[in-house]
């Protein structure tokens, strides 16, 4: 009986000791939102559509991100502008469904779609989680800041003529038999 009482007292004291000890130790808690920890650049949260170094939309609406998306949260419609440039007439990401897996970013051949560390974009209305192109488009290059897809693609979209893009020979003359 006495032994049992001693056991109880000891265990309570041990508990209070553990708790009381932390009164004298610096806390590890970060008090969010007063303090916001800087996240690594590769953390995956809110998705953006970036622009090329000249400020043009990078997205060519190739449907690879929507094709690879495991939850089908990306939809778009490609279109062609007067210069022949392919772009997204509309581009929609349903963040209510997005799992931030980053496959879209991996699939993107033009570095247009990128995941950012900004995870704070919860909305109270589910429809506000559906982002349209104007909500996604930003005015910077993000990762891969020097890449301009159309300088490598070889199709004429008003930037340069055939043979004037990076790593291209001038158009061949098909009317000569000279070697």
């Amino acid at each position, binding site marked *: 009986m006495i032994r049992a009482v001693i056991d109880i007292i000891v265990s309570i004291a041990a508990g209070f000791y553990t708790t009381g000890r932390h009164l004298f130790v610096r806390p590890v808690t970060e008090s969010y939102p007063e303090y916001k920890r800087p996240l690594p650049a590769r953390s995956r949260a809110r998705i953006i559509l970036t622009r090329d170094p000249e400020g043009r939309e990078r997205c060519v609406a190739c449907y690879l991100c*929507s094709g690879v998306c495991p939850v089908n949260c990306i939809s778009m*419609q490609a279109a062609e502008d007067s210069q022949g440039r392919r772009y997204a007439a509309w581009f929609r990401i349903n963040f209510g469904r997005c799992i931030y897996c980053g496959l879209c970013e991996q699939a993107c051949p033009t570095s247009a779609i990128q995941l950012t560390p900004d995870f704070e974009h919860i909305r109270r209305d589910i*429809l506000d989680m559906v982002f*349209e192109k104007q909500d996604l488009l930003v005015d910077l290059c993000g990762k891969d800041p020097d890449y301009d897809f159309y300088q490598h693609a070889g199709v004429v979209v008003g930037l340069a003529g055939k043979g004037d893009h990076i790593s291209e*020979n001038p158009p061949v003359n098909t009317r000569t*038999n000279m*070697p």
Partner: protein
Amino acid sequence: MPKLIIDNREIEVPEGTKVIKAAEKLGIYIPRFCFHHALGAVGACRVCAVKFQEGPVDGVQMSCMIDAQDGMKVSTADPEAADFRRSVIEWLMLNHPHDCPVCDEGGHCLLQDLTVAGGHGIRRSKGRKRTYTDQYLGPLVYHEMNRCIQCYRCVRFYREYSGYSDLGVTGIAGRVYFGRLREGILESPFAGNLIDICPTGVYTDRPSRYTGRRWDFERTPGVCIHCSLGCRTTVSARYRQVVRVEGRFSQQVNRDFICDRGRYGFYYADRPGRPRNGRINGQTVSAQQAVEEARDRLQRITQEHGPEAVGIIGSARSSLQTLSALVHLCHTTGWQGPVFRNTWIAGAAADAAVRALSPENAFSMREIETADAILAVGADPVNEAPMLALAMRQAQRTGAEIIAIDPRPLDWPFDFAHLACRAEEMEETLASAAERLSASRRPVVICGTEITDDGIVMQAADLVAGLRGSDKRAGLFCTMPQANSFGAALLDESNACAADLADRIETGQIRALAVFESDLWHVFPDRSRLSTALEKLDLLVSVDFLDTPLFENADIGIPSLTVFEAGGIYVNQEGRAQQVRPAHTGGLPIAAAGLGDHPPRSFSPDVPGRDMPAAWAAAFSLSGQAPPETDAQMTAWMRDNFAVLADLAHMEADGVRLFAGRKVSIPDEAQIPEKKPDQFLELLPAPTIFGGEPMSGHSQCLRELAGLPAVWMARADADRLGIADDDRVSLGFENIEVTLNVRISDPMAQGVLVVYRHPDIDWQPAPDGKRIFISEDQIRRIEKA
């Protein structure tokens, strides 16, 4: 029959089979770019390399170039062959641009597939890429030569298979170029097949450029309804809209390819002006309200004036479901009709053709390809049934002699003898030309039904019967005016035409008219008579998926579903009933719902614009009956109610052949066409490939190709009248005055003016069954300004 071993499995194949085909029979797919089963082998791409381990051939060789022989032992997976193929891909990619994301071929690109399959991912070459300048090839095909891998498929199809010569190959060595000598519109009406046949993205679809990737499309097997051949298609739909139509292989009908009318004629289905709401006296209502209002008002007229006061008109562009529902509608209500004969020239010829065709003498296009002599009477396949021209071209390539008897100028992609004659001389010419078939073993007589009369069709059928009697494998092939002309003739009991109904409207017998998927303004000969007749009506109901003038002017307009939304059964000109499945669910396309921008930001389980009925369902509702609920129930209902359709139960992949054998109907008396008076020219309206039928004229890209409306005349006539090529003339007849450009042709009948139908020609110089003659002084040459 040589026996060989491929990948340790033995197979016996017919003499002359290439190893690549023998492997295919075993289910082994050897990679290929240049080899195509319709075009044969040239050995240009080097990617079908396999290792010959034993037998008459030794080492790594191209499997498409070597005939299967006895004792061969072939390995497709041998490291040496696999390495070879891998290198081929890598060197093909040396100059291939880095533009897959903006290339429409991406997703169904053979080069992309094989590059991924071969494991080539990282470019090793540091060299610069070769580039080419591209050409504008017209409104249908987009050219991007940088992507070319020199497989020669395009020129082999274009020049050899389809017989046109304006696309070819120039340059040598690393500068080989595929294109036209000068930039310009491709002349072939089969140019769209370049898109299907190109293993990469050199030729891509221009009208549907950048609309989507193949993996996003709902792809449904379809049947083309732009002519009577019923070619197989694959319909790609996305976001409740048809975006692309491609050819689908069919053993008996079109084989691999389709014509450009079938490929690009579908834009009527989703254009902005298409009726999607009901109309009552000009007021927009829901489709359901329009159906109910029409039903109530038709019943009121029936009660007041008897069932004879209501007339029903249908057309051969409707599905078999709609046609049979209309017959049933008139049976149960006692209404007049249904009248299906509202084509330009009376349906008598098509009717005669349906009676003449039997399981023995009806040939398919497949059998035309193997014919050794072809006699075409009053048929212009390029304009009436384009894929038939391609089948005839295949026969001609294997040595068939082709004879054409026709008044029109014929522009066919193969050599043929043109016996130009007028309608009244046709019978005689046919009789004399028949002798030229005597040396053949597999002759085919092709008979048109649009500019001929029933007498010619019966004469052609007699000729075939005679040839069969003298131990030849002879066949008859009739082209017909519309997709379901055969089906309409099977079900047509009244043999009446729209003019008969007009008589009864004028006498006041008919007080209400319901017109299903037909535009009377387009097919009725006499416009002023039609408009006064229609004004006399108490009620005009139009059920259509096109915004025709009749639909606009009807008291009640009911929008109906297109073939892409409702599906249906269509019977082609050889009696082959083919099932079409709906390509998408219907309703307002997303692009229209979002007004071009993103789709509406709202959640709703309802699809806007989905309350439109199929035309057959509307036909049931007009008599107050509940239509069968599902397509399967509807097909079963058709089988049970119509003896001629009982065979629909045996529908297979290649369709089912229906014949009029059981139909007890006495053929009309064959009429000898009235002779052309002297000093008069016959005005012959003729079908044309682009925009010549009601639907394809709504495709913007095909309208561009239709050119300007023109009148064609023989050189002798033009010289006599003092008219030169490219002049403008004004024709005045029957209170109509039209101005047309003149085209002069040498091999065409004298004394005939041919006017091809054109979307911009809105007059109908084709009184039903009657011929039109205009005197020489009614043709006035207009001085150029």
